[in-house]
């Protein structure tokens, strides 16, 4: 078995979640690498959608931006943000991959600010970008993020992007489309899902060599643990070879 770093693990685990012929709205960084790996390995017909308007490119190299030349290389359509977001609102997009500075037990994300004074925040981040739109309108939201207790917090400072808000039924009460919401969280330590009854985050699969205690130490809120806890399959030699040689040969994302 080949050695791998935590970023490579995130990318490989993320890519496995994308079945063939699904539509996936892709953000910058790890999600792009995961989607490209899925395309090259097990889901050649996965349809990546980029927020600036490109659909289903045959990516010749890893894009730097969700709006750059690569995202429309041999694409099916180079359209508008309005068109691709309306496609989400119409219910045609299965997955979205997101990140964030903070996440809570309901999968609510903060990418806007730290502090309690909105006009003069302690720290200002970029803001929603397309994240609020995608988590509101795509069917399943997958978050990919490193895990530590500064990132996984009891309450986020600002809900930029909706998870399950306050729990079961809250999204629908707020007016968000029925049947949408957080699906998985992929971290460097484990894969988390959500409990059906409470919509709270739950450990579903531990990465090789990681314990439940280790995950809990790196989380600022109380985590549920799935009854049939699994162990994540480590990246295969083939996944790593394609990732390193074809997806990210310059190490932009995986840092090699």
């Amino acid at each position, binding site marked *: 078995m080949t050695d791998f770093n935590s970023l490579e693990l995130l990318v490989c685990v993320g890519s496995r979640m994308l079945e063939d012929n699904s539509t996936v709205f892709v953000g*910058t*960084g790890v999600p792009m690498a995961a989607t490209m790996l899925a395309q090259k390995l097990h889901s050649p017909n996965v349809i990546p959608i*980029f*927020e*600036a*308007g490109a659909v289903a490119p*045959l990516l*010749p*190299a890893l894009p*730097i*931006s*969700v*709006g*750059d*030349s690569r*995202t*429309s*290389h041999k694409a099916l359509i*180079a*359209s*508008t*943000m*309005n068109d691709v*977001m309306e496609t989400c*609102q119409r219910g045609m997009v299965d997955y979205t991959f997101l990140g964030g500075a903070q996440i809570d037990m309901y999968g*609510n994300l903060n990418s*806007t600010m730290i502090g309690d004074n*909105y*006009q*003069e*925040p*302690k*720290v*200002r*981040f*970029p*803001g*929603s*970008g397309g*994240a*609020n*739109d995608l988590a*509101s*309108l795509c069917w399943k939201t997958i978050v990919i993020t490193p895990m530590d207790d500064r990132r996984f917090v009891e*309450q986020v400072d*600002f*809900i*930029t*992007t*909706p998870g399950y*808000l*306050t729990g079961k039924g*809250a999204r629908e*009460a*707020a*007016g*968000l*489309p029925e049947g949408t919401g957080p699906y998985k969280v992929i971290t460097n330590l484990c894969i988390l899902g959500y409990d059906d009854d409470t919509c709270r985050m739950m450990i579903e699969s531990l990465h090789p060599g990681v314990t439940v205690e280790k995950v809990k130490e790196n989380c600022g809120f109380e985590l549920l643990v799935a009854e049939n806890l699994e162990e994540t399959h480590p990246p295969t030699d083939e996944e790593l070879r394609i990732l390193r040689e074809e997806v990210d040969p310059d190490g*932009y*994302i995986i840092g090699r």
Partner: protein
Amino acid sequence: MYDELIGLTEGQEELFVDPDPDHARAFFKNKNRAMVNKVTTVEQAVTTFVHDGDYLAVGGFGHVRIPSAILYEIVRQGKRNLGMAGHTSIYDSDLLASTGCMDRCDISYVIGYEIRGLSASARKAFQSKAIRKTDWSNCALAWRFAAGAMGLSFIPSRNLLGTNTFQRSAAKTITCPFTGKTFAALPALYPDCGIIHVHEADAYGNCRIPEGILVSDPQLARASKKLIISCERLIPHDEIRANPQATIIPYWCVDAVVEVPYGSHPGNMPGEYWFDEDFFKMYLDTVKTVEGTEGFYKDYVHGVRDYGEYLEKIGGVAKMRELRAIDKLIYANHG
């Protein structure tokens, strides 16, 4: 704290632009319909169509197909109290925020440079109350432009709901008269002046974007009261007539046309040239300090007469040919 967000019926922050469609119609009623030659210089376009206090909207994707020459000129002329739609914005909003040109912003994405990290000078500017802020999402602003393009006062949508993004917006909720469902109501956005960089335009302002993504530029162009176009190349009017399907922006939206080859540097221009990553790295390193930021603008904006001199400073044609080769995958093994 979370509970109060779910039933919130209106955002609490400032609405910077009047959404009244009859006010917009009164403006558009008097907009010139004549097909006249609108070709001008960067300096003249900014002098004539960008005024202190105006609310601006910039096309492209923040570091892809951006109207750099026009943005640098706005900084060079020292425009003040500008508002801006911080829609998919990166280098564009950074330039106007870091130089004190901007005093209010509808934010959906600022400060960040995607995988390159953050701009320290933009962060400092946006953390200060010197810039009044209202938050949205990328699509909320895209649909606000669409509402403007449609001549409406708002558009219903299913994003923002239940979040602090809604709380810090100026959106409201509305009950659908057909289904009884709760939607967000996004106010139409009619910018005073839009600025878009395109591949090709004729002298009247008919525009084409033959490669790469469109973002929200068709909507932004139509919603804007005035519109400055910079283009890589002017093309003969007959080429527009020969292929009308290719026209993305019709001339009647446009007030000024400026030909600026390599006009999106350091941004990517799809099909033409790639990002200048060396420049972005230099920029992000330089603006970590106040002195560095001042030095950057002294060197690259105030210290050069125009965009031609700027291009010489960043490496001239040789540099741009190098970036073109990357964009065209000329030396790549695949694709």
